[in-house]
């Protein structure tokens, strides 16, 4: 399969690989996919007091396009608010990486991972407010 240069670049030099402390109240974790499906994406975001994403990390078990999709969104997420983050669409990811039709699901998975991470963070923060 022919990969685009951008996919190859992210695959060869993935950005923001790693993990954040998932118990940190400022950190939201999204884990989507399943090993049997061939992709598992773990995306973590950390927000500052203003609710702006200041760090993002990922680990991905998946094909080159899945790795590139998650690597790309960690770059995009930094500096965004949670609302802005939730607006990232899979089509934008697919377009940026020039994914072929059979790899569109990788961008869908990345979008799902963002939503899951944002939801995790929001539930933590809601819980915190309720507790307070």
């Amino acid at each position, binding site marked *: 399969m022919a990969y685009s240069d951008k996919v190859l670049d992210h695959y060869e030099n993935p950005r923001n690989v790693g993990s954040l402390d998932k118990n940190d109240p400022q950190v939201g974790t999204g*884990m989507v996919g399943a090993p049997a499906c*061939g992709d*598992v994406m773990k995306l973590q975001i950390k927000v500052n007091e203003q609710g702006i994403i200041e760090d993002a990390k990922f680990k*991905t078990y998946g*094909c*080159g396009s899945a790795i590139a999709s998650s690597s790309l969104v960690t770059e995009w997420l930094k500096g965004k608010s949670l609302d802005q983050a939730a607006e990232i669409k899979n089509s934008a990811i697919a377009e940026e990486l020039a994914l072929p039709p*059979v790899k569109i699901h990788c961008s869908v998975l990345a979008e799902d991972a963002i939503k899951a991470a944002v939801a995790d963070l929001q539930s933590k923060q809601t819980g915190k407010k309720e507790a307070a």
Partner: protein
Amino acid sequence: MTVHTPIYLDYSATTPVDPRVAEAMIPFITEHFGNPASRSHSFGWTAEKAVENAREEVARLVNADPREIVWTSGATESNNLAIKGAAHFYSGKGKHIITVQTEHKAVIDAVRELERVGFEATYLQPEPDGLIDIEKFKAAIRPDTVLASVMMVNNEIGVIQDIEAIGNLCRANNVIFHVDAAQATGKVTIDLEKLPVDLMSFSAHKTYGPKGIGALYVRRKPRIRLEAQIHGGGQERGFRSGTLATHQIVGMGEAFRIAREEMELENARIRRLRDRLLTGLQDIEEVYVNGDLKQRVPHNLNISFNYVEGESLIMAVKDIAVSSGSACTSASLEPSYVLRALGRSDELAHSSIRFSIGRFTTEEEVDYTIELMKSKIDKLRELSPLWEMYQDGIDLNSVQWAAH
């Protein structure tokens, strides 16, 4: 150490043509270009003589009579001719066929086609080591079983089935026995004087011969008959019509001659290389060898690397040309049906690599491969959330995955 990349370790997919084979072929593409069926002029006679010499060489490698060798366009055609040809010819006896889940697609799909036209089939599941339990084979035989097809050497995991034992069962039960030996020639000794086999498929391009040529062994005593699949000029005693590609036949003959003469030494050398590769790769954590290691050709090593995904693994190791356990169809990534039949999980099937070693593999190439695999597996595991969970002691089977 000079190693040219990519390193070819995919000899089970196809082998390079041995330079000696190419040399034997060239005169028959240039000056001796006659059609072997043209009996009326000397151009045809030269071609015919070369074809018959090659037939003898193929027969000698497997200790058969040259008259038992039928040329085909390759093992796929041999398998189709043997299975469909015998099943149809002997369908008066019954319409049940036995084969194995780990057979090559050309066997499985030919049997499936027979199912569409009214035959019944049993697809035996091999044991987790890839080998067939003889008792299970025996139990599958029915009074209406007409044909059994079992490959000698598996293309993905290299295990060698006990053809003699299976053949004896077939003989005892009056079942025609076909063996796909495309992956066996030049790797294991085949003696058709002794083996109770009725039909056997061969390929040239898996044994350092050219692509586009193969053969089918059709036993004469007792005589096995077949319904032809390709009809026409009546070449190959009517078993297979079509103008024979003389240079390709000559190439197959020469390739099989070399295999017969050099097999013993070559296998010993290849076994040393395979053992070196195995030892090196077993340094890596969480690797699993697929298929029995003892009853196996030395050329094959099939290993699953846990917690890395198959396609990214193939991307990572592009400096070596190998096959993966993921058959990439146009739309989806299917895990190898052979590994699944062994009971491997989809994940382990996906993350498997078949290294197949051959005539031109060097020790330097094996060493390079070991180092490459070590560093790439490290890198991919660094990226893998599954590896992280495994190291944290999480049982991945207990995780509720949000399947999508």
